[in-house]
Structures are given as structure tokens and as C-alpha cells.
């Protein structure tokens, strides 16, 4: 069989998986619409069905306009996607190693706190301070990620339990830290940190060509893309990446081949934690400029959905993170323009994840015949 034929075949296959993806998104929007209409008890009760549908139309158009409808909307989408991309890679890398990192939130908090510290003790220049601050985030996240790694390697405590517990512990520890003289803003009594120096704030990504006003996205996206590229290189080109994946797919075989399971577990969690720590640092330097107890929000948790949706591949994770970021900014616009609150976004995300994960179901609903689908397991049980 000539090579071009194989190439064509695989391209068609990829096309059909794109079709499935689009149909999955459409399915999610349809179910979302049903929920919007059914929950509109006021209008349905008064029999104003037309009004309910027109609100739905306004909402969905606001969703599009708020995410990609203007330069400002696009910039908002970029800013929202950035932490999803980085934290998503953190969770994805752990999945590839056979580890389930639910602790990205805690690692983001630890990293962000370290970044904040470097951010306010120094005062520029940017070229030194920003890398140092992000490095501190990396180290903070890595140290915090090391805890579940070491616990699993030394005692066998499952990372699902330990990372969940550490998320709570991190959120209370940061609350304590923000109350200390070291971190707390002098004129405040609530737990909020000092501002990082102006030099430490990430510059606008298109600031150098004078687009900083029109397109105010910060340059964290560049870091995010670098993280994706590094993740790709790590998986495809590095020896350790190969070991990680071998260990993730079959721990026994990997161990038999001479790889050291405990070391891989610890290193995997340290690396995943470090990446999540950078995500926390980016949020501080790009968005807030200071730390609070809740600056990480639900990003670390949503990142699990991002990684699952992207099947833990570099590009897949990046695109699903962008989709999540776009929904986020669109959802804000929707909440402003209609009575529909932004929690709808959580519903839509869940449905998209569900439908994309269930290609067989999407095929059955839309009666698509040809498309090939792959099913695989992300997480190999609880380990023994």
C-alpha cells in the first residue's frame, strides 16, 4: 500500500473525529438549551414561551460574542485559557504517569504564594524578577506536589486521598500566611497580600506593537504555550518522558524493565506540582497582582476536566483549555446580558466532556456511521 494512501486514510479518520467533536459540542448546547428553557419557571408559568426562547437566543449569541466577538473578548478568552492550559498540562502529565493529580488547586496556591513573595520583596528589573518569581512558583508547587509523591512511594497512601486533603490544608495554610506580617498588606485586616512590584507584573502580550489597550491579554499565554511545547518534547523526545508513560501504562512491566517505580512516582508528582505552581504564579503576576485565599478558584479542579477532555495529549489539552477559557469569557457576557447565570458554563462543560468521552453515544444520537472511535482508559484503577 503506498504511503500517501495511509496518510489520506488517517487524515479522513482525524476529520471524522473532528466531526464527532463538533457534534458533541452541539449536543451539549442542545441539552443546555433544554435546561435553560425548563428552568425558566416564571415565563413558562405565564405561558410566554416565545420570550423564553428569545432569551435563549440572546444568551447563546452572548456566549459567542463574549468569547470571540471582539478583540477585547478574544483577549479575555486568552487570559482565561492561560491557567487552564498550564494546570491542564499538570494534570495530564500526572495521568500519563498513572497518577491522578486532584491537587492542582493546592499546588497552585503554594506556587502562587511563593511567586507573590518574590513579587513584593524585589523591585525589578522585570527581566530578572518575572523569571525568578515564576521559578519560585515552580519550586513552591513542586515542593507541595512532592508531599503526595513521597507519601505514595514511602507508605502507599493513595494520591487521590492525599491530594484532596492537601488542597484543604493548602487553602487553610495560605489563609494563615496571609494573616502574617510577612504577607499581609499593612493597611488591611483581612487576609490579603501585599501588591507585587509593578515590574513583576506580566507585560501585555502585544504591548510591544502598541496593542496593549485594544488587546489587553497578558503574556502568560506565551509561558502556557512554552509549557505545552515542553510537555510535547518531554513525552515524545525525552527518556524520562518515555519512562513516565511506560510506568503509567503498565507499572509492573516498567519495573521489570528496570525503571524505579518509587522514583518515578515522586518525580511525576514533583513535576506535575511544579507546573501547577507556575499556573498559580501566572495568575498572580498576570491577573491579580496580589494573593488571596481563593485566587486559584476552581481552576485546579476544572483542569482535571481539561486534561480528560484533551485525552492528556499536549495539543488536546491545549485546545480543551482554550474551549474552557472561551466558555468562561462568553459566560460572563451572557450573565451580563440575560437572566441566565454563569453556572450554565459548568453544565455545558460537563456535557461537552461527557459527549466527547462517549463517541459511541454521539454516533448513536446523530446516526453517524463511518467514524472510527477510540476508547481508552485514562486512569488504571486504584493500583494495588
Amino acid at each position, binding site marked *: 500500500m503506498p504511503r500517501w494512501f495511509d496518510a489520506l486514510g488517517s487524515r479522513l479518520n482525524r476529520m471524522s473525529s473532528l466531526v464527532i467533536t463538533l457534534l458533541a459540542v452541539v449536543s451539549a448546547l442542545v441539552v443546555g438549551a433544554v435546561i435553560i428553557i425548563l428552568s425558566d419557571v416564571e415565563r413558562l408559568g405565564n405561558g410566554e414561551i416565545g420570550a423564553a426562547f428569545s432569551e435563549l437566543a440572546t444568551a447563546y449569541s452572548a456566549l459567542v460574542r463574549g468569547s470571540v466577538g471582539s478583540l477585547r473578548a478574544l483577549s479575555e478568552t486568552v487570559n482565561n485559557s492561560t491557567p487552564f492550559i498550564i494546570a491542564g498540562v499538570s494534570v495530564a502529565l500526572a495521568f500519563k504517569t498513572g497518577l491522578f493529580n486532584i491537587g492542582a488547586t493546592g499546588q497552585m496556591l503554594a506556587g502562587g504564594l511563593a511567586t507573590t513573595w518574590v513579587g513584593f520583596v524585589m523591585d525589578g528589573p522585570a527581566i530578572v524578577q518575572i523569571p525568578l518569581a515564576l521559578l519560585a512558583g515552580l519550586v513552591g508547587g513542586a515542593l507541595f506536589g512532592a508531599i503526595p509523591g513521597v507519601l505514595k512511594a514511602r*507508605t502507599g497512601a493513595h494520591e487521590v486521598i492525599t491530594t*484532596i486533603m492537601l488542597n484543604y490544608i493548602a487553602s487553610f495554610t495560605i489563609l*494563615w500566611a496571609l494573616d502574617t506580617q510577612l504577607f499581609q498588606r499593612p493597611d488591611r485586616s483581612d487576609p490579603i497580600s501585599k501588591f507585587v512590584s509593578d515590574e513583576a507584573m506580566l507585560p501585555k502580550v502585544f504591548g510591544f506593537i502598541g496593542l496593549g489597550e485594544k488587546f489587553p491579554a497578558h503574556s502568560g499565554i506565551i509561558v502556557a504555550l512554552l509549557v505545552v511545547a515542553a510537555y510535547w518534547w518531554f513525552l515524545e523526545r525525552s527518556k524520562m518522558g518515555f519512562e513516565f508513560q511506560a510506568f503509567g501504562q503498565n507499572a509492573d512491566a516498567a519495573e521489570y524493565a528496570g525503571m524505579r517505580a518509587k522514583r518515578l512516582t515522586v518525580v511525576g508528582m514533583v513535576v506535575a506540582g511544579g507546573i501547577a505552581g507556575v499556573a498559580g504564579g501566572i495568575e498572580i503576576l498576570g491577573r491579580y497582582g496580589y494573593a488571596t485565599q481563593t485566587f486559584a478558584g476552581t481552576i485546579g479542579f476544572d483542569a482535571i476536566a481539561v486534561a*480528560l477532555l484533551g485525552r492528556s495529549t499536549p495539543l488536546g489539552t491545549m485546545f480543551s483549555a482554550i474551549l474552557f477559557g472561551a466558555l468562561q469569557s462568553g459566560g460572563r457576557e451572557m450573565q451580563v446580558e440575560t437572566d441566565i447565570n454563569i*453556572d450554565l*458554563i459548568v453544565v455545558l462543560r460537563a456535557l461537552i*466532556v461527557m459527549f466527547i468521552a462517549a463517541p459511541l453515544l454521539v454516533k448513536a444520537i446523530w446516526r453517524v456511521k463511518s467514524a472510527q472511535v477510540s476508547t481508552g482508559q485514562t486512569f488504571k484503577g486504584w493500583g*494495588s
Partner: protein
Amino acid sequence: MSATVMLSAEQRKQSRNTGVTLIILGVISAVFFTQDGGSAGFGLTEGFTLNLSSQRFAQVLAVALVGAGAFQLYRGFGRLMNVFLATGTALFVISFLAWSASGESFNFTGMLQDTVARSVPITLGAVAGILCERSGVINIAIEGQLLFAAFTGSIVGSILNPWFGIVGAVASGVALGGLLGVLAIKYQVDQVIVGFAINFLSLGVTSFVGQRVLVTKPEYNYLTPFRPIDVPLLSDIPVIGPSMFEQNLFVYFSYVVVAATTWWMYRTRWGLRTRAIGEYPKAAGSLGVDVLKLRYRNLLIGGAVAGLGGAWWPVGAVGRFDENITGGRGFIALAAVIFGRWHPVGAFIAALVFTLAEAVRLKLGNLDTGIPSEFLLSAPYFVTLVVVAGFVGRSRAPKSVGQPYTEQ
């Protein structure tokens, strides 16, 4: 058990960990809890308060713990190891309480009562998880099942009456169990993905509809929760009676569910088959067990149990639904599944350990201690972390959990 029995490397390590943990607890007790000379009052029953000298208690305990730890390292308690550990930890907690409450007194029995009451949703959620996982399906969706059930339970319970609220909650748990089943078993979707999707879906739908409907119609979200009912005779036992048998129906439901699941899992044919299909579905299938049907059945029953657990919030505790009211309890339940080694009684104990730490934290919040409140807040999570790492160690999951099964 004689000391000559050969132990595997794993067991030796665990036995060593246990010994070291005991000694560490003893040293902490000796260094910190002997600082203060006052005595603490543990209110046990009405009119009877046990006064403990925190210093003396800590001294005795420290010696006992270090001694026990050393013996564990030297000879090993063998089968009694876990009993010593549990006792040691419980005494350690009491010593900690005596130290922090020194000079004051508080209602100890009330604290235990609170512990048992709060354990209900975690226990039921964990039993739901066990039912699914023993049959070979990972259930990460416990949180979502609890949350959705709490939501439905509150609405149905407010419109009709609390009993119907329970029915509604159970029905919604079953529905989500069915959804998990259809996607995981029929469409063979990655079970972790489905589980997380269900969690997000529940969070999204309940928050979204809650904001859209319940905010404008508060009468759909208001009901009178169950009151405690004393069990005759049993509730007269000092300390244990009030803490375990002066509770509302949900606590008794959870006892029944734990007992029934244990019996069912180890004493019935259905339970045996469930355990078989979670370990070697192919072998069970070749012997004529309908693997897929049995998995569906377990998922639906698990959903019902989780639904009952979710009903605890509106019907058994607060009388309404709030956004994300479960606040991660489903994940604590997931931890309890692993911590309890996939056994209902183990899960129940795990839930109690967590809620005891939480009750201690709530109590200490009222007492004036020197500890920053943020560290007290993280105590339940910290205790779970230490217990899982130090005591439980590597637990063995059902072998085929998470793998889809195709009929040959």
C-alpha cells in the same frame, strides 16, 4: 500469633511504620501536652464531669505510647496491631483535648454525638462507592450523586413532605447511578471521565437551577428536618447511648445500611458474585454470571444509597439546599472507601475518624487555645492524611475496577 510467622516485606514495613507512628505520637504528647498544669473537664453525662489533669494524663500516655511503639518495633503486636493503634490515637486525641481545654470544661458527649451525626453522608457515600467498585466500576461521581440528591430532596421535600423528599433524593441517586451505568457499561466510556462529568453536571445543574428558581421561590426550599429519636434502653448507656442512640433517623439508616451491606457482601450469593466480577469478571462470566446486569444492579443500588446520603442535608440536618452544599464530602467519602479498604465497616470507621477530627475542631473553636484557627480548620484533613499515610498504607483495590467488560 507467634513472632516466627514469616511476614512479607510489605507487612514488615507497615508494622515498622506503625511502631514509628506510635512513638511519634508519644513524643508529641510528652513535649507539648505536658506543658500546662491545669485540668480539663470532660462533660460526660448530665451532672457528671470527668476532670482530667492534662499534664498527668499526657505524661502517662506518652510513656504508654512510646512503650507500645518500642514493643511494636521489637516484637510486634501481630494481629492486635490495629487495635493498639486505634486506642492509641483515640487517647492521643483525648490528651490533645485535655491540653487545649485545660482550665475549662466542655461537653465531651455532645462532641461525640456531633461526630456520629455528621458521619452519615460520608458513610452512605462511601458504601455507595463500595457497591460500585466491588463490582468493578469506579465511582468518582459520589460527590455529584450526593449533591443532586440533596437538591432534589430539598425541593420534593418542601413541596410534599420530608419523606417524599427522601424518596426523591433516592430516585435522583438511582438516576445518576443509571447514567453512570449506561455510559460506563454500555458505551464503555472511561469511568473516571464519566464520574467527573457527572460531578460537574450535578454542580452545574443544581447551582444553575438553584439560582434561577429557588432564589425567587424560597418556598420550594424550606422544610423541617427530622428530630432525634431516642432508642429505648440503648440510649441509657452512659456516653455511648447519647452519642450513638439519641440521633435522628438518618443515623439509624446508616447503621442499617452498613450492617446490611456487610451481610449482603459476605453472606449472600449476590455479594459473592459482586466480589467475583470486581476481581475476575471473565472467570465469573464463563461460569454463567451475567456480569453486565450485575454491574448495573450494583450501580443502581449504590445510587440509591448515595441518594439517601444526599437527603441528609435537607431532611436530616439543615432543612434546605444551598449551592454546593456537599462541599467535597463526596470526595471525603471516596477517601473513606480506600481508607476503609472497600469494606462497609471500614468505611464507617473512616468516616467517623474524619468527623471526629471535625467535631474536635468545632469544639476547640469555642475554647480559647493558643493554636492559630487556620490550623484547627485544617485538622480533619490533616488527621485523615496522617492516618492514611501512617496506618493504612497500601490497600488493595478490586482487581478489575475501572476496566470495561465485553461479553465474549
